[in-house]
């Protein structure tokens, strides 16, 4: 079943009379459990595509169906709920709240979740342990290294048990060792059945994915499966 279904998505920005078309007629389908890499040079429209996929922005035209639900018609409240319940974000710049402990950063999505969440601290602790940060629970982002911050972000993206993880250049701000660690974490998540969409300009990183979609000038240039040999070569 298609978890993500994008049909003829267009996105343009209007700026004092000028219309900039960022995405043009993008159609793509992603199934549950897929590990998809989206590659392309900067300015190709990757981040805009992720923003629409992550319900952070609405397309100018076209149809986006996420988990069977058409997104275009949702109001802010419902859209926020979709982000909260179905999507976990991992950003290049980490985007953790400054001055707030790792534990509280991980809990943040639950603050906006519906209903009673049970023992949220325990769950956050487990997730931080899973990414190897059980000794860093009460550190603020400023006291953590880049790799550690990214792992906090990954823990945060998992706290609501989302269907999809959207990662935008997750290794962009990391050294190669931490980059490899992060990618291993994603590989493990795919094995657990998560759907991962990875945006990167780094072909090496993209090869972790089972499928690579290239974006060029706002359009899909290629969409191919990654052979097993390619994957093993990258590791």
């Amino acid at each position, binding site marked *: 079943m298609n978890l993500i279904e994008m049909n003829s998505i267009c996105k343009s920005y209007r700026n004092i009379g000028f219309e900039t078309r960022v995405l043009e007629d993008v159609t793509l389908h992603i199934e549950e459990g897929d590990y998809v890499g989206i590659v392309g040079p900067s300015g190709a429209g990757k981040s805009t595509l992720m923003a629409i996929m992550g319900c952070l922005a609405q397309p100018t035209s076209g149809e986006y169906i996420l988990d069977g639900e058409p997104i275009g018609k949702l109001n802010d409240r419902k859209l926020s709920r979709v982000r909260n319940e179905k999507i976990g974000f991992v950003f290049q710049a980490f985007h953790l709240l400054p*001055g707030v402990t790792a534990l509280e950063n991980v809990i943040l999505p639950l603050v906006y979740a519906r209903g009673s969440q049970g023992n949220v601290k325990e769950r956050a602790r487990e997730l931080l342990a899973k990414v190897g940060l059980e000794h860093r629970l009460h550190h603020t982002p400023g006291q953590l290294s880049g790799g550690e911050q990214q792992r906090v972000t990954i823990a945060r993206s998992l706290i609501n048990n989302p269907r999809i993880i959207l990662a935008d250049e997750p290794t962009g701000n990391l050294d190669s060792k931490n980059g490899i660690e992060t990618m291993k974490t994603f590989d493990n998540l795919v094995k657990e059945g998560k759907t991962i969409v990875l945006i990167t300009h780094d072909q090496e990183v993209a090869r972790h994915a089972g499928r690579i979609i290239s974006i060029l000038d706002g359009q899909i240039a290629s969409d191919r499966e990654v052979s097993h040999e390619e994957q093993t070569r990258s590791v």
Partner: protein
Amino acid sequence: MNFFSSLGIALKALLAHKTRTFLSSLGILIGIASVIIMVAIGKGSQQEVMDVIAGMGENLITVNAGEMKRRGGRLRLTGNVTTLTVRDANRIMDEIGEVENVAPFEEKRMVAKFGNNSAETTIAGSTSDFSVIRGYRLQSGDFFSERDAKTANRVAIIGMTTVKNIFGEEDPMGQVIKVHFMPFKIIGVFEPKGVDTNGLDQDDLLLIPLSTYMRRIVNQKFISRIFVKASSRQNIAKASEKIRELLRENHKLTDDRNDDFTLISQLDMEDLKKETTELFTKLIVGVAGISLLVGGIGILAVMLISVKERTREIGIRRAVGATRRDIVHQFLYESLIIGFIGGGLGIVLGVGLTLGLTHWGDWTLILDPNSIWTASWACAGIGGLFGVFPAIKASKLDPMEALTIE
């Protein structure tokens, strides 16, 4: 998201910037404190004036000969009217049930001499009821006797200011002073009484029997004033009306003629003074209100800066599922809390200063619970009002743009 989570987030954000939070609430703090103190000063001065009026005589009605007109802020007698007499005073006393005491009165500024000392003072002629009505008490000596009044004896009771002016440190009791070349024996000394509502010194006085005054000093039949004490506060208006009717009848005034006298009761004086003090109160509350407005604008500025500074935080919160409404709440609660902090500290400061000034300073301040209540609402209102715009601005940020902002 529930109320307490929003409140918690707002509190945490404010605690992270304690100095800024305090500074932004400072405007409200000063505004609220000044409202409370100003109102207390206004109330205090009003009470002082009321005390002075009451001190001029309880349930007092003054009948003045001629028409009184306000000139230069004070009531002054116009013209020279000769129709008011002791007979009027006697009839008021005898015929009006609501009247307790009556004292016909006449006065003149004259020079009094003792030895080589001389000073101008108010020589007043009245009956011994004068002291009862006007609230004069004797510090030493006695009032005039019936016989003093009948025989127009040359005896006098002296006010404190006149004592100081003429006798200095010497004891005036039993001494003889000269007024209008006539010797008067001091038989009593009044307790000090202070100034009246017009700022006139009520202790600058030499009281002699009215009969003595009329026969020996001025040789006239008419008087300029009658002091009347109504039996109760409720009866002041009724007594005034009856006095008016009686005097019109006594003076044979036909319907087409104006009164040839003027009645001023304690209530009239209170109303008159209330007007001025209320105007004063409105004025200072207005000024304090402006400072509250300035405080509100302070909150507005700080909140706008805060939204700008935390654009990325807003983006993060939106990305993990915060709705626009959640963001509005978060920032609105922040400005409300700033308002409450400022208001709370302002009330503490205002009440503290008011009590302190009353306790240790020479101030009459009266704390008005209403002003505290109003101030509480005002700070909540200002916090809310000036927080709405920044909060809405924050919620309208595009999440994606907010995340990518540098």
